[in-house]
C-alpha cells in the first residue's frame, strides 16, 4: 500500500500535506500484501471495509478478535486482515473457528467466506454451528457462484443464471440462506449487499457483540465471472442493480425472502433474539450438574 503524500488531483500541482497520510484502516490491513488479488469492481473489498468498520464500531478489543476464512476469492479476506487470521480449508472455516473459539474462549471469532464455502461444501458445519449457537459471527459473501475456481454454479446461483458448469443456465433451486440459518437457530440473521456498506457495517458491529451464532449474508458483485457470463456488466452495474432492486424489510419472515435471478432482493435484519450461546450454556449446565467437581475450561495460560 502506498503512502499518500498529497490529495490526488493528478493533473494539478497542490501543496503537499505536512505529513504522509495513511488510510485510516491501515492498521487493520496487511498492507505489505497489497494490492489484494480481487478484481476491479469486485465487491469483496467493500465487505472487508465494512468488517473493519464494524469491528471498530463494536468496541471489541481487536487483539481478542480472530478471523477465519475458507477457500475462495471471499476466503482470501482473512489474509488481508491484520488480526489473528486463519485461512483454513474449503468449507471448514466454521469448524476451525469453532475449535479456535473454544480453544481460547476469550476470543470472538468471525468467519468471512464465500457462498460456496459456507453453503455448499461447508453446509453441514453451518447448520450445526447455528444449531449449537456457537459464539461465532459468520459473514457469507454471496456472489452467486464459485468465483475462485472460475465461475461455477453453486447452491446460491439463481435459476436461469449462467455459470461455467451451468452453460445453459442454472436449473437447481437455490438456498435461501437466512431462512436456513434461522431454521437452525441462529440468533442474529441479516442480509445486505455490498452497496449497503453502512448498514452492513452496523450489522457486523451488532453481530460481533451478540453472544451466539450470528449470520450476515452480504451480496456482492463478481464482475469477472458471474456478471460477465450473464452479461450484467461491471461491478458498478451490479451496484446500480442492487440500488434499484434491493428493498429493506427489517423483520421480514425469512421464509419469504428467496432470491430470484435479477429480481428484487429483500435485505434487512430478520432475526435478533436472545438465546444462551454454547459456551455459556455448557458452563452453567455442567456447573449445575457437577457443582464443586466442575472445573470450567478457561483456555490455557
Amino acid at each position: 500500500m502506498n503512502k499518500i503524500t498529497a490529495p490526488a488531483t493528478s493533473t494539478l500541482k497542490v501543496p503537499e500535506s505536512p505529513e504522509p497520510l495513511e488510510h485510516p484502516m491501515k492498521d487493520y490491513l496487511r498492507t505489505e500484501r497489497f494490492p489484494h488479488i480481487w478484481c476491479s469492481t469486485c465487491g469483496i473489498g467493500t465487505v472487508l471495509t465494512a468488517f473493519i468498520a464494524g469491528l471498530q464500531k463494536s468496541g471489541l478489543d481487536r487483539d481478542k478478535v480472530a478471523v477465519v476464512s475458507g477457500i475462495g476469492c471471499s476466503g482470501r479476506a482473512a489474509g488481508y486482515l491484520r488480526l489473528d487470521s486463519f485461512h483454513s480449508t474449503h468449507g471448514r472455516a466454521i469448524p476451525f473457528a469453532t475449535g479456535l473459539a473454544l480453544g481460547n474462549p476469550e476470543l470472538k471469532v468471525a468467519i468471512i467466506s464465500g457462498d460456496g464455502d459456507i453453503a455448499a461444501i461447508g453446509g453441514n458445519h453451518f447448520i450445526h454451528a447455528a444449531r449449537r449457537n456457537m459464539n461465532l459471527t459468520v459473514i457469507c459473501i454471496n456472489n452467486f457462484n464459485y468465483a475462485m475456481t472460475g465461475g461455477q454454479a453453486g447452491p446460491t446461483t439463481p435459476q436461469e443464471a449462467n455459470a461455467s458448469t451451468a452453460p445453459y443456465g442454472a436449473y437447481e433451486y437455490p438456498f435461501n440462506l437466512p431462512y436456513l440459518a434461522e431454521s437452525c437457530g441462529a440468533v442474529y440473521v441479516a442480509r445486505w449487499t455490498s452497496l449497503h456498506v453502512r448498514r452492513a457495517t452496523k450489522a457486523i458491529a451488532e453481530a460481533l457483540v451478540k453472544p451466539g451464532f450470528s449470520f450476515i449474508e452480504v451480496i456482492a458483485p463478481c464482475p469477472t465471472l458471474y456478471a460477465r457470463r450473464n452479461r450484467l456488466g461491471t461491478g458498478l452495474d451490479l451496484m446500480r442493480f442492487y440500488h434499484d432492486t434491493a428493498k429493506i424489510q427489517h423483520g421480514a419472515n425469512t421464509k419469504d425472502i428467496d432470491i430470484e435471478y435479477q429480481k428484487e432482493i429483500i435485505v434487512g435484519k430478520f432475526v435478533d433474539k436472545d438465546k444462551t450461546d454454547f459456551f455459556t450454556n455448557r458452563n452453567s449446565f455442567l456447573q449445575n450438574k457437577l457443582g464443586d467437581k466442575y472445573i470450567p475450561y478457561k483456555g490455557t495460560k
Partner: protein
Amino acid sequence: MMNYWRTPLDINKIEVPHGNVHIDNEQCKGCGFCIEYCPRDVLALSKDFNRKGYHYPIVLKQGACVNCTLCEMICPDFSIFVVEGKPSHPNIDDVLKKGVKS
C-alpha cells in the same frame, strides 16, 4: 427508495463539515464506486491510466466534500480516504474539467 449514505443533515447550515479526499492512484482499480456514490459529486474519473491500466478517480470539487466517508467505505481497494478539515486545496472544478473522462 432508500439512502445508501449518511445524509449530511446540516449540509446547508453553518458549520458544514469538510473533508479532504486522498487517493492512492496506483492501488485504485478504477471501479468507479466512489465516484458514483459520492453524494456531492466530488470525484470524477481521470483520463489517465495507472500502471495496471485502470482509470483512477480525481478530486473534482475538493471544497464540496462533506466528509461523509462514503467513498472511503465503499472503495473495495482501500484506495481512497477522507480526512476531516477545511479543504487544504482550492476548489479545482474548472481546472480539472478538461482532464476528466465523461
